[in-house]
C-alpha cells in the first residue's frame, strides 16, 4: 500500500466522518465547561474579576501559535509528498488560526484596559502576535487570490515556509527592539508558578476545549473544502468532455 492510498481523500472522509461527532461533543463540553468553571473561580486579590478573561486569552493565544505550526507541517507534507488533503487542511486551518489570534488580541486588549490603562501597548509579546496575525492574513489572501488550486497550494506552501522563518525572526527582532520598554513584572501577571490550582485546572480544561474546538473546525472545514474541490473537479470534467 503506497503512501498515496493511505492519504486518499475518500479514506480521510471516512475517518473524519467517524471521529467528527466525538470531537464536536468534546469541544463543546470542555470549552464551555472550562470557561464556566473559570468564571466561577474566586476573584483575584489584585486583579479582581478581570482575571477571568485568562480562560479565553491563554488558550486562544496558544492555539494561535500551534495552528501556524500545524500549517507549516501540513504544507511541508504537501510540498514533499503531494498529499492533497494535507494542502487543504492547511488552507482550512488558516482562518481558524487567524480568528484565534484575533481572540487573543481582543481579549488581551480588553484585559489591558483595566490592567495597563490602555487598549494597546507595543509590548513585544503583543507585537509578535500582531505580526503573526499579519502572516495569517497574507497567507489567507494568497489562497483566495489564486484561481488554479494546484498553483495556489504550491505557492501558499512556499509562502508558509518562508513566512515561518520570518515570523520566528520577527519575534526575536521584536524582543530586541523593545527591550528597554518591556513591561515590568509588576504589570504583567507572573506566569504559571504563582498561579494557584484554583485557576490552573479550569485553565487546563479550557485549553483542552480550545484544542478540540480547533480540531472540530479543522475537520469540518477540510471536509467542506474536499467536497468543494470534488464538485469543481466534476464540473471541470463535464465541460471538458
Amino acid at each position, binding site marked *: 500500500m503506497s503512501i498515496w492510498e493511505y492519504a486518499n481523500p475518500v479514506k480521510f472522509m471516512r475517518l473524519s466522518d467517524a471521529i467528527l461527532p466525538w470531537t464536536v461533543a468534546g469541544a463543546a463540553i470542555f470549552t464551555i465547561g472550562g470557561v464556566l468553571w473559570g468564571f466561577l473561580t474566586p476573584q483575584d486579590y489584585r486583579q479582581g474579576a478581570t482575571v477571568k478573561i485568562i480562560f479565553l486569552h491563554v488558550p486562544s493565544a496558544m492555539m494561535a501559535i500551534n495552528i501556524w505550526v500545524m500549517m507549516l507541517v501540513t504544507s511541508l507534507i504537501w510540498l514533499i509528498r503531494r498529499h492533497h488533503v494535507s494542502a487543504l487542511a492547511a488552507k482550512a486551518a488558516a482562518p481558524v488560526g487567524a480568528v484565534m489570534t484575533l481572540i487573543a488580541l481582543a481579549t488581551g486588549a480588553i484585559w489591558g484596559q483595566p490592567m495597563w490603562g490602555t487598549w494597546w501597548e*507595543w509590548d513585544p509579546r503583543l507585537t509578535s502576535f500582531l505580526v503573526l496575525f499579519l502572516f495569517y*492574513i*497574507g497567507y489567507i489572501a*494568497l489562497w483566495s487570490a489564486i484561481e488554479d488550486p494546484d498553483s495556489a497550494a504550491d505557492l501558499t506552501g512556499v509562502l508558509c515556509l518562508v513566512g515561518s522563518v520570518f515570523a520566528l525572526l520577527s519575534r526575536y527582532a521584536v524582543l530586541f527592539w523593545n527591550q528597554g520598554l518591556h513591561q515590568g513584572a509588576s504589570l504583567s501577571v507572573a506566569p504559571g508558578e504563582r498561579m494557584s490550582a484554583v485557576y490552573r485546572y479550569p485553565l487546563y480544561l479550557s485549553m483542552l476545549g480550545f484544542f478540540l474546538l480547533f480540531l472540530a473546525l479543522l475537520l469540518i472545514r477540510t471536509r467542506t473544502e474536499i467536497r468543494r474541490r470534488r464538485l469543481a473537479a466534476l464540473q471541470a470534467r463535464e465541460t471538458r468532455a
Partner: protein
Amino acid sequence: MLALLRRDLVLAVRAGGGFGLAVAFFLIISALVPFGVGPGVAALRPIAAGILWLGALLSCLLSLDRIFALDHEDGSLDLLATAPVPLEGAVAVKALAHWITTGLPLVAASPLFGILLHLPGQAMPWLIISLLIGTPALSMLGAFGAAITMGLRRGGLLLSLLVLPLYIPTLIFGTEIVRRGADGGDPGTPILFLAGITLAVLALVPFAAAAALRINLR
C-alpha cells in the same frame, strides 16, 4: 455604467482580497511605523494622525496604479472608448469602484488603527470624518494619475511621483482636522476646505483623466 461598476467590484473581489486588502495594508503600515519610530506613547501620539493619513495615501497608490493599465493591455479600454458610455463617466465609475474597495473599508476600520497608534479618543470621530470626506478625492486624483501613466510599462514609482504632490492639500487639511480634534480645537475650517477640494476634484478631474485616456489610446 452600472455594469462597469459591478464588473470592477467583482474583479476587485476575485483578484484577491478586495475589500480586506486595503485594510490589511493599513494594518501593516500601522504596525511598521512603531518598528521604525519606536514603541512609546510619547513617540506615537503626536504623529498618529499624520501616519494614518499617509497610510491612506499609500494604500490608495498601491491599489490604483493598474486600474487603467490592465484595461488597456487586454483591449477593454479600446472597446469601452467605442461603447455608448462617455469616457468621463467610465473614469468616474472606476474611481468610485476604487473608493468602495479601498477608501470605504479604510474609513470603517480607521478607529482600530487609531487605537494602535495611540490616537487620543476624542480625535477618533474627526479621523473618521476627515477620511470620509478626503478619500474620494484621493481615489479620483489617483485615477487621473493612472490615466496619464497608463501606457507605461512600470508606472508604479512614476505614478506616485505624479500623484503624491496632488495629494498634498488633502493631506494637510485632513491631518489638520484630526489634530484640531485631538487638541479640542475647532476643526470647522479645515473640514470646509477639505470638502471643497474633494467636491472640486470630483467635478473636474474626470474630464482631465478622460482626456489623458484618449491621448494614450491614440
